[in-house]
């Protein structure tokens, strides 16, 4: 498929034939009407290449989004499409081989963030990002995902989080409380809001968790974190591991139900939102029994209701739109309302809102060490756009985006700090009774 052999990893002990069969079986299961319509409608116009940061940054044809679906397309044409028997009988489309699948790993994991910018440009409206996610299920079934992601997968299966075992949560939270001085309730038997975290908030970004605690405490919310479900970053969603996605989703929702919480509050994390807000219903066919909210919309509601008031900053800012909460999540306006409440004069990036370029780290790419050089190239697009705004603050609302952008800035020796919307809100809270 590509000129030079691409790196790949393998998990498990399946033979090659079994891997191909597992991938094909999984691919075939994905084709409902929508996926099939999207497979059928492509006219190979190549427009999607012009939306993809990896293609734009490198000029390499192989990063064309719809090309990343080539093996998925072959599976569709051979096994599912309306002319499948004819296609198979005449071998019009070759069956993917183990080499094809292995070489495909780079395209579907290293060079796709499932950010969906390609979905926005496609004249046929094909949701390529969703199809890549569906194709990842087959790659996972075949034991053909980047080892770094597989390692996180194994950890999350055991611990409920790729960062830390559930039993360590009380100690970690106690340390954060000590460090930042803001009480964080843990394992309360009853609460209105179950608050969840991204892995980094239990490690490098503890300030963000303390910020959430400060806001919730000031707003008088009855909340808790809980060992039963505390990490919202759904690694199963990114990796293509559906059983793990279900396990992690259920941990959050069922824990919330157990403690009588009406709301699961997700952290500043994009894929957490994609997994819990839009996909939890897969496992709750009668309806998700709690409200799932991203931090941005929660802040937006707290501000709108007057439960928290902010001291305006009154400086210029630009905002990086996290793909999963804006382009694929619908929180474009909510994020801007929070920025406005902070008194920012917003200087939008050239490509912003649902047309924003991805940070380059989503979909597990930030954790995939192998993809670092490619990520660094994509970062240059964002860097140039941020510089062009001349804004003083560079803000975002996703911890993973922040990590990716911070890594990019460090490598490019770019002296810009990436700020968290949540942390800014916490810093600018008006203390009632004080001037």
């Amino acid at each position, binding site marked *: 498929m590509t000129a030079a052999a691409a790196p790949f990893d393998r998990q498990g002990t399946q033979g090659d034939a079994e891997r191909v069969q597992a991938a094909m079986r999984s691919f075939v299961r994905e084709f409902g009407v929508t996926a099939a319509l999207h497979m059928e409608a492509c006219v190979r116009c*190549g427009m999607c290449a012009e939306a993809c940061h990896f293609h734009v940054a490198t000029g390499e044809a192989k990063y064309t989004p719809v090309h990343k679906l080539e093996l998925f397309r072959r599976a569709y044409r051979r096994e599912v499409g309306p002319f499948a028997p004819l296609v198979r009988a005449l071998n019009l489309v070759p069956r993917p081989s183990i080499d094809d699948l292995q070489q495909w790993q780079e395209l579907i994991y290293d060079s796709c963030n499932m950010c969906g910018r390609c979905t926005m440009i496609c004249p046929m*409206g094909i949701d390529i990002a969703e199809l890549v996610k569906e194709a990842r299920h087959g790659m996972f079934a075949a034991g053909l995902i980047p080892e770094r992601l597989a390692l996180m997968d194994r950890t999350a299966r055991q611990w409920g989080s790729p960062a830390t075992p559930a039993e360590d949560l009380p100690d970690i939270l106690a340390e954060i409380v000590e460090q930042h001085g803001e009480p964080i309730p843990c394992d309360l038997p009853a609460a209105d809001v179950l608050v969840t975290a991204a892995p980094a908030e239990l490690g490098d970004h503890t300030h963000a968790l303390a910020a959430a605690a400060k806001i919730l405490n000031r707003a008088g919310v009855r909340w808790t974190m809980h060992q039963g479900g505390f990490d919202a970053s759904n690694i199963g969603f990114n990796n293509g591991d559906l059983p793990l996605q279900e396990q992690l989703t259920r941990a959050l929702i069922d824990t919330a139900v157990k403690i009588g919480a009406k709301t699961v509050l997700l952290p500043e994390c994009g894929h957490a939102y994609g997994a819990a807000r839009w996909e939890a219903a897969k496992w709750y066919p009668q309806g998700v029994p709690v409200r799932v909210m991203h931090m941005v919309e929660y802040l937006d509601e707290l501000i709108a209701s007057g439960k928290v008031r902010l001291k305006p900053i009154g400086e210029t800012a630009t905002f990086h739109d996290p793909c999963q909460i804006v382009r694929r999540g619908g929180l474009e306006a909510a994020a801007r309302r929070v920025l406005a409440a902070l008194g920012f004069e917003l200087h939008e990036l050239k490509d912003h809102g649902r047309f924003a370029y991805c940070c380059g780290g989503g979909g597990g790419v930030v954790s995939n060490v192998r993809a670092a050089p490619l990520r660094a190239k994509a970062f240059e697009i964002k860097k140039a756009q941020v510089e062009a705004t001349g804004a003083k603050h560079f803000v975002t609302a996703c911890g993973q985006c922040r990590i990716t952008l911070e890594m990019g800035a460090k490598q490019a020796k770019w002296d810009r700090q990436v700020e968290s919307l949540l942390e800014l809100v916490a810093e600018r809270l008006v203390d009632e009774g004080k001037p």
Partner: protein
Amino acid sequence: MTLLDFARGPALQFAIIVFVFGVLWRLVGVLLLPRIGDRSPPREGAPATWLGAARTVVRRMWPRREFIERTLYPTLNSYVFHVGLALVVFGLAPHIVFIRDWTGLSWPALPSDLVLAIGVVTLVSLVAVLVRRLVHPVLRLLSHAGDYLSWLVTALPVATGLATTMDFGPRYETMLALHVLSIAALLIWFPFGKLMHAFFFVLSRGATGARFSHRGVEV
């Protein structure tokens, strides 16, 4: 039976049967697949599913300002040959007569010299499409044999139609027969290749429009 009789008679009839049954087979084959519903609660204020779908179908008729800088040439050229094909097919007097004989529907024709000029522009535009597909690294990578065949069966009726009108090549009846045969080829290939996007574009855009309007995103 002359070549023209054959073209207008059995060849065209066969082609129309393949076209109708092929299109139905492909559409039904896709639409009968399982429907994987979205049971997530919609964004507050999200439009009805059908409305969200319809808006995206319409919205994607024209390019987004955000992308036009990088896609100006293929976008413009796509408009040229799509609009050109429509004007030639539905604007030329003999075509309208042909359609009237089959369906009873008719409308005023465009001046034949104008249609001729549009035909030339359309053919040039289609040649540009082919050249781009042959030289652009992304398109070369994406293209399958079927894509070139789709191009051929689209361009041939335009080329033979122009030759017929301009009295170019063999005698008129033979050229007209070749023109009709090229249309038969188009109809026969239509259900099997990407020309089906003429039907699928509505459904494909609509599915994405439904998915994202549910989430409160205008796509």
